[in-house]
């Protein structure tokens, strides 16, 4: 594979350029739109040269959508907060529930352990609406409808399997002898878990948490079905925002950019672990 003809190199170059163009152009274009006024967005032909404005972002952050004719209140910052709160709390709960379970599955093989682990995994693949539709009725009866608590609970369906299977792999990679040695030295199980297993699996736990956060942040259907406006995360809020703001396209673009920036940042930070996370711990990057 080392001998490449000039022709091949040119073809490869073209192919890579096309690939980058297709995958990067939408992001590039929406970023441009977010710095434009409606007047420049509606210009035909479209141009990449314009006077950039921050008014879209300012409007979103201050929560006042000011147009020539009226002023409209927008709650986009509230959606952003909901996304942050729901994702962070779901991951925290997922870690508290998932890490000990992952340790049990990795270290303390017990009767039914594999069955339970696979049952938890299979949640990842069931159609979400199958559960969500009856859940709307139950949540109303239980008073969980449109509460953060109810949403965080349902978010465990995405967060838990991910944490469980990634962290399990990391626990399995720790040589059991280290733990035994520590135990033989007279330490209790809990101390061993805290002082030996947890720190050694630390990077894996962090990676699982970051990925779970990204998946929770990007989720759409749970909140669409179970939350109303004041509890909705950005994915659902942005959709409502389009109908509410009518034709403020620059603002919609700015809202999209603000909503995807956090996951991009986390993904860049956690890129080493992405492959492992996306394959639920099967493939190492």
């Amino acid at each position, binding site marked *: *594979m080392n001998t490449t003809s000039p022709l091949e190199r040119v073809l490869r170059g073209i192919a*890579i350029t096309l*690939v*980058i163009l297709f*995958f990067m152009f939408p*992001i590039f*274009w929406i970023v441009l739109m977010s710095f434009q006024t409606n007047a420049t*967005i*509606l210009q035909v032909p479209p141009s990449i040269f314009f006077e950039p404005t921050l008014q879209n972002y300012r409007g979103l952050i201050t929560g006042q959508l000011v147009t020539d004719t009226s002023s409209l209140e927008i709650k986009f910052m509230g959606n952003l907060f909901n996304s942050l709160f729901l994702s962070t709390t779901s991951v925290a709960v997922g870690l*508290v*529930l*998932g890490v*000990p*379970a992952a340790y*049990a599955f990795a270290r*303390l093989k017990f009767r039914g*352990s594999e069955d*339970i682990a696979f*049952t938890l995994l*299979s949640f990842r*693949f069931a*159609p979400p*609406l*199958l*559960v969500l*539709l*009856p859940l709307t009725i*139950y949540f109303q009866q239980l008073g969980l409808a449109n509460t953060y608590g109810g949403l965080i*609970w349902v978010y*465990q*369906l995405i967060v838990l399997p991910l944490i469980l299977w990634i962290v399990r*792999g990391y626990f399995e990679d720790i040589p059991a002898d280290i733990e*035994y040695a520590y*135990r033989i030295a007279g330490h209790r199980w809990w101390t061993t878990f805290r002082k030996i297993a947890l720190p050694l699996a630390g990077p894996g736990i962090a990676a699982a948490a970051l990925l779970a956060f990204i998946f929770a942040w*990007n*989720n*759409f259907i749970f909140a669409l*079905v179970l939350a109303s406006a004041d509890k909705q995360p950005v*994915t*659902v809020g*942005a*959709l409502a925002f*389009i109908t509410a703001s009518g034709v403020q396209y620059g603002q*919609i673009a700015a809202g*999209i950019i603000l*909503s*995807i920036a956090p*996951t*991009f940042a*986390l*993904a*860049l930070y956690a*890129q080493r672990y*992405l492959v492992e996370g*996306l394959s*639920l711990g*099967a*493939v*190492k*990057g």
Partner: protein
Amino acid sequence: MSDVSTGAPPRRRFKVSRRMLPYVLSLPALLVCIGILIPFFTAVLYSLQRYRLSQPWARKFNWGENYLNFLSDSSFWNTLKVSLTYAFATVGIELLLGLGIALLLQKRSRFNNFVSIMLLMPLMTAPALAALMWKLMTNPGFGILSYFADLLGFTNFNWASDPQTAMLTVVIVDVWVYTPFIMILLLAGLRSLPQQPFEAAALDGVPRWFVFYRITLPMLTPFLLTAVLFRVIESIQQFDIIYAMTQGGPGDSLTVFQVEAYLNFFQSTNVGRSAALMMILWAITFFLSNIFIKNWLRLRERQRGEA
């Protein structure tokens, strides 16, 4: 394992909890999920009932009637057709494109690593937001892609608002979001392959297409299967992109399973039909995910063995 632990300082309380320990550790996670399993059984019941939210008095078991009705229900067959078309089109294109890009980026170099990280950005975009991005770009008034289509001679190319091209549009969005998923898994797979067969083939002057079909592809198969099955399972359940883009329209051109069930539940308030639709989708995904999990486990074991 437990032999070693009995070597620890003898403490009665400890020994008892030792046997219970794994259950104590895994039970909370399980309980949280079981809470969510109950609605699953409720959905089974709903699917066997005549149940409309608008006519609660007429609610009763009609057993298999919801399912039997599907046989003569053209909109059900449309749902099945649209879902399968979507799944095959998206995963087919994503597989070819993802494999192609992975091969392009296979060599470890600073540039290739940079590109592969950049290409992950669409995958990190929430699918619903990705659909909105493309909606802005295909807007007939100012969308850049509508403008390009115009330049290329496709006047009045209406993207998602035309039943003729709606499927094409959502497939493009799906390809944009999920191709990097297949690409990144295959890239990891390609880079983990042992080098000896390739070196031997190069020494013998074996043509490269032959190397690709006889060495690369067979060795890559576990990765391909895992990536493709994963995508098929997700794709046949796609909701976010389609709902955010067109809410299943125009007409019934994009009413895939989950969108149709959602509309049945919230618009026509036909809970029974909605639940029956979801049960059929569940049966399909259950079948697929069993195959997937077998492959995924084999790959997991193998990768762990090498690590």
